[in-house]
């Protein structure tokens, strides 16, 4: 992976020193909260419901064992022994105390990590396909380009005060695992007719209170043009984007109000001005970065031990069937380590679990670890002969749940258990759904299903693109949960449709159960997924299941 240059190192250390001084001045009263708040947000420090929260960037979801161990150390020394992995491939610490934050940031800097631009109206952590560099379906590893974007966007003087936050996602595969169509800019690698790799550039996607699927402004952008093109998009947005209304400030609204054709024209015009200015420096830098993402030295060894365990151990077999994805080297596997044990908090890992992940990554996974936007951990390069030992090691710390892509593999935002913006809780709803379907022993029969839960309209839990989306709201002083159906975050992206009136906190799990029973009754065969059934039949049979009396209560 990429190692900090002297410039990166000095930049991060300088920011730690600056922020340490700012914290000291806040505590001694020289800075008011109004003055301090933008400074702390620039460094990823929020004030939540019960405590401060520090959001640490994990660029494009790539993290080393050494960094993972440092996160464990921070969790033990300055927090409550765990961390929460988020839908932007970040980690959040929920209980730091203000006077400790400078020490935490210094500890992060020791392992080339930071919390810069994890908040504020800037370009946020660039997210990427969590199978990058390993997936069988990949054209190219998108992470060198993601790293180039990280360096370019970090402290970029022109883009520190955008109209609103700005999120970029990138995938190197035609199968979109990075939700590129729901980002401010989505970059999807494709080949042109000559077979050269480039990007489909998608602009103006987003979730939140006004969910939109992005529009393609370029079907094929040569790879070498990426940085000037992205800068052109940002430049047009920075000029046109609305600063008068926070709720209309994202680029999705700019695209909607300007029109896709005019927006595209303006981007191309700006691109024509910017392109000559780059002069190839970005490509020289990219070539250096690409060297840092060299493929590991894959082993060539028998995989018989894995086959044997697969045949004889049903628990191991279930785990392999659900948590393993195809690697481009047939002797290897991509392993998704589930952070969704039934009844656990989605995305949370204890410090012990973090250390075990670091250990097994080193011993069995070429020292590579990724965090997925689905709040799981990926070991992208595991030789199949190592899978039984890996499974055994993960089992000991509750990390071997065989549920990836199933009903209990739920995305849930922190919701009103932590978040100051939340209007209802998300985590307990996820916990109850997971334990309910585990009790019913229906999970594997139901098959592929994505439930995503947000505790407010800002949609950090991506509920709009859940096959079943759940949105928690405050209705007249009571938690109320709306269901959306048919959402999809992949290359066939779709925004889910609201099913009808919401459900009370104690009604939401039974409602989901009715939905699932309707699906099981309606599906043509066991391999027709929930989403396929929904697309074939439409919402009617599901609405009938949700509102059996035909006269739903007003929410």
């Amino acid at each position: 992976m990429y190692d900090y240059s002297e410039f990166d190192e000095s930049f991060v250390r300088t920011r730690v020193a600056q922020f340490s001084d700012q914290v000291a001045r806040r505590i001694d009263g020289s800075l008011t909260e109004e003055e301090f708040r933008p400074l702390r947000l620039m460094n990823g420090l929020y004030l939540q419901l019960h405590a401060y929260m520090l959001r640490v960037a994990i660029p494009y979801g790539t993290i080393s064992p050494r960094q993972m161990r440092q996160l464990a150390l921070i969790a033990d020394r300055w927090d409550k022994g765990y961390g929460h992995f988020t839908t932007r491939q970040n980690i959040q610490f929920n209980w730091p105390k203000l006077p400790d934050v400078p020490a935490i940031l210094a500890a992060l800097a020791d392992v080339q990590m930071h919390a810069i631009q994890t908040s504020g109206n800037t370009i946020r952590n660039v997210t990427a396909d969590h199978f990058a560099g390993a997936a069988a379906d990949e054209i190219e590893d998108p992470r060198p380009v993601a790293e180039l974007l990280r360096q370019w966007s970090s402290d970029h003087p022109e883009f520190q005060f955008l109209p609103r936050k700005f999120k970029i996602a990138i995938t190197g595969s035609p199968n979109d695992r990075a939700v590129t169509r729901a980002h401010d800019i989505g970059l999807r690698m494709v080949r042109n007719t000559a077979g050269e790799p480039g990007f489909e550039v998608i602009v103006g996607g987003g979730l939140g209170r006004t969910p939109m699927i992005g529009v393609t402004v370029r079907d094929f952008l040569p790879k070498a043009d990426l940085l000037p093109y992205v800068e052109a998009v940002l430049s047009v947005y920075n000029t046109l984007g609305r600063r008068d209304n926070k709720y209309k400030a994202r680029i999705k609204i700019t695209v909607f109000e300007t029109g896709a054709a005019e927006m595209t024209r303006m981007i191309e015009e700006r691109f024509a001005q910017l392109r000559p200015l780059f002069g190839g420096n970005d490509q020289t830098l990219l070539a250096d970065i690409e060297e840092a993402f060299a493929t590991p030295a894959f082993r060539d060894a028998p995989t018989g031990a894995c086959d044997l365990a697969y045949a004889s151990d049903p628990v191991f077999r279930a785990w392999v069937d659900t948590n393993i994805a195809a690697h481009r080297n047939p002797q290897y596997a991509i392993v998704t380590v589930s952070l969704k044990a039934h009844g656990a908090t989605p995305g949370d890992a204890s410090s012990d679990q973090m250390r075990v992940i670091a250990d097994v990554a080193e011993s069995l996974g070429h020292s590579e670890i990724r965090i997925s936007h689905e709040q799981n951990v990926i070991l992208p390069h595991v030789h199949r002969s190592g899978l039984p030992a890996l499974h055994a090691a993960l089992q000991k710390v509750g990390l071997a749940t065989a549920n990836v892509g199933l009903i209990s593999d739920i995305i849930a935002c922190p919701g009103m258990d932590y978040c100051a913006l939340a209007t209802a809780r998300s985590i307990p709803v996820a916990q109850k759904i997971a334990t309910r379907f585990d009790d019913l022993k229906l999970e594997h029969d139901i098959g592929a299903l994505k439930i995503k839960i947000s505790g407010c309209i800002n949609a950090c839990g991506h509920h709009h693109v859940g096959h079943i989306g759940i949105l928690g709201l405050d209705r007249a002083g009571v938690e109320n949960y709306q269901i959306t159906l048919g959402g999809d975050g992949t290359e066939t992206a779709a925004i889910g449709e609201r099913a009808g009136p919401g459900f009370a906190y104690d009604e939401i799990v039974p409602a989901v159960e009715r939905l699932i029973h309707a699906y099981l009754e309606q599906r043509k065969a066991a391999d027709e997924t929930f989403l396929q059934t929904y697309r074939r039949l439409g919402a009617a049979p599901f609405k009938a299941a949700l509102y059996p009396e035909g006269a739903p209560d007003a929410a």
Partner: protein
Amino acid sequence: MSRRFTPKVVTANALLEGDVVYLTADDRWSRDHREAELIEDEAVAEERLLHAASQRRTIVGAYLADARPGPDGPEPAHFREVFRTRGPSNYAHGKQVDAPYV
């Protein structure tokens, strides 16, 4: 006829720890909602809020939250404020450990 004023407490987060705190009648910041001053008059509430907001070296983000009288002192009226009195529901962390309050 003007709407009846819903009683309030002044609440905030402690500057250093981030803990949820409540302004008491004797001008302390308590971590226990039951010790909060229950303010029944709108003008007094505004004045107490201003007083709280001026304590910038102690607390952050003071605001008025709806509350009602209870047998052991003021009780939160809204579920968000109920959660703030105890901590998250997924772990026994926060006030529910340090100062049990139901």
